[in-house]
């Protein structure tokens, strides 16, 4: 019975990693860049919701919509100012380092505006969840909502990418940027759209992250962002269903290693998995062929 409890805890944590990893992998799959600032976009989304819902006591729904809009604008602006000019740079490292810079910039900006004090986030999910068995097993409402939202996003993204013109353009850009340009696809516009979607997903992930772990600080997004990156690699970076599976598996591994091995070593194990995956199966669980990535 206690194993099941831990498994459910792992599922809760994993569902959060999964929803963050979706945004990570989406941007990587198409723009072929790791947006290290993704975790900090999440943090920005959380602060927007916190400000609207708690400080101004506004409607939760309004807060989430506002966070999505602001994160989308932030993502598009960041892409335009910080990433696009470097896309043609000689080394692909330039844009990665810029992304780290953006990450620290956002963290410090939040520190300046909101201060280092933590704020307690009111959950956007008011539902308590379901109780199983004799009442000792409980799946939290936020876990179920997170998994449901992840699946909806997963399906919506797949439909968007495979059924719409813009989605097809994304696939083309992902496959061969040069050829896509020759075919008359506006690469810059396509990548901007990718960032817009990825950042909107960050806002949604932020709302759910802070609902599950209601402590908001300028560094809220940093560690979950890095773990979600590991999850995306585990699932096969660039693969959208892979991000979902990778997130859930990683969360369960983390909780079980905390439980049965050591609560202090769990991070070492999680990052050890990253090393092992890269050595043994660099394409991850679902990222079989490069062509299938998106």
């Amino acid at each position: 019975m206690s194993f099941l409890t831990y498994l459910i805890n792992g599922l809760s944590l994993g569902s959060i990693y999964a929803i963050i990893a979706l945004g990570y992998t989406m941007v990587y799959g198409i723009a072929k860049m790791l947006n290290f600032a993704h975790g900090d976009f999440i943090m920005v989304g959380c602060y927007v919701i916190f400000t609207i819902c708690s400080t101004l006591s506004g409607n939760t729904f309004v807060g989430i919509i506002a966070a999505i809009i602001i994160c989308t604008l932030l993502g598009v602006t960041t892409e335009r100012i910080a990433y696009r000019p470097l896309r043609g740079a000689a080394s692909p490292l330039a844009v990665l380092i810029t992304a780290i810079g953006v990450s620290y910039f956002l963290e410090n900006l939040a520190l300046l505006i909101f201060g280092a004090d933590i704020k307690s986030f009111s959950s956007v999910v008011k539902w308590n969840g379901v109780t199983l068995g004799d009442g000792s097993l409980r799946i939290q409402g936020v876990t179920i909502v997170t998994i449901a939202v992840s699946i909806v996003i997963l399906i919506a993204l797949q439909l968007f990418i495979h059924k719409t013109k813009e989605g097809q353009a994304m696939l083309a850009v992902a496959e061969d940027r040069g050829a896509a340009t020759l075919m008359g696809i506006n690469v810059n516009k396509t990548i901007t759209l990718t960032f817009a979607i990825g950042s909107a997903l960050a806002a949604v992930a932020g709302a759910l992250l802070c609902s599950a772990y209601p402590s908001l600080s300028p560094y809220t997004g940093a560690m979950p962002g890095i773990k979600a990156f590991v999850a995306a690699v585990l699932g096969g970076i660039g693969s959208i269903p892979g991000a979902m599976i990778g997130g859930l598996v990683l969360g369960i591994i983390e909780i079980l290693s905390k439980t049965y091995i050591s609560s202090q070593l769990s991070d070492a194990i999680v990052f050890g998995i990253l090393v092992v995956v890269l050595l043994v199966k660099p394409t991850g669980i679902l990222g079989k062929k490069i062509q299938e990535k998106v």
Partner: protein
Amino acid sequence: MKKLKSIVSLMAASALLAGTIAGCGGNANGGAAGADTASDAQGTESAGGVFKIGAIGPLTGGAAAYGNAVCNAAELAVAEINAAGGINGYQVEYSKEDDELNAEKSVNAYNTLKDWGMQVLVGSTTSACSIAVSEYTKEDNMFQITPSGSAVDCVKYDNVFRVCFSDPNQGIASAQYINDHNLATKVGIIYDSSDVYSSGIYQKFVEESNGKNYEVVSAEAFTADNNTDFSVQLQKAKDAGADLVFLPIYYKDASLILTQADTMGYKPVFFGVDGMDGILTVENFDTSLAEGLMLLTPFAADATDDLTVNFVKNYQEKYGEVPNQFAADAYDAVFIIKQAIEAKGLTPDTSTSDICEALKSAMTEIEASGLTSAKMSWEANGEPNKEPKAVVIKDGAYVSAD
């Protein structure tokens, strides 16, 4: 593939960097100032008829609340002593200096006070400043008593004593308190293994728990990089049947632990130390979750003994706010100095160095009674022995647990 590897190594580097940066937050400027060391002890010869006591603390800046509490309470204590006839019949003069929470400025403040003729120092308020100043008080053989410097190194020299518990000794005090008040039969611990403060208290607590009337049934750690999900640590404490969970951690992590315990439906007594002070100030925190939370703290302003009632009343009249534990520590410090001077029958014309020698031996002999404990005595190493006190959160406010 090659590209991915380089990306990943970069990622790892950035993670490492992030860890380093997060790890060094909150440290005050630790280095002692190099300048101004030449002035010798002769400048401190007193002007005859009065004792001169100085205090140092951050009177401006982010920690101003602490420094002002210490300096105001010391001032209040001196005023009360003078009104009652002084020490050994001699009046006391008092002066305070600002150190802005900066170790270098704290040393400058000390030199300013020394030039003024200070014979005994109450300060500094914070640990890093207190340590920096102790390098100079040691050299000058000036008696120093820090009201609130809790780091172990604050009292590493024999001329320095403290009023508060040291960080690790809070572990001992907590164990005693839980034992003496029969708070639990089974105790779980959740601590931050990446933090010296937290793991120091944890170790002392476990050592002291031997032979107590409770049993430590689970001790689970977390690290600064993994401090969002506490479900495993809480579940283990719950499965082990812990009816009290000891949290020697800061309130930031504790607020999450309280929330997650509530979600799990786990309701033990939570017991914290001074790092827990502040949990009620977390913005938007549901304080009902902290209901019943106990924390070890030397002073509760709502206590009903005469000493506390008078102190709170006089402090409020003079400074317009309710005194905190820093104020109580400083108030006690001044009366401890008075008692030690009286025990040795010192007069203001004694040299600063002789006063220091006399007070060093007096400190180990006296038994003081004050706001922070009814019975305090000291070891020669500067650590206080006193009865731990705790407060409990009731209806969103601290009330004395005794």
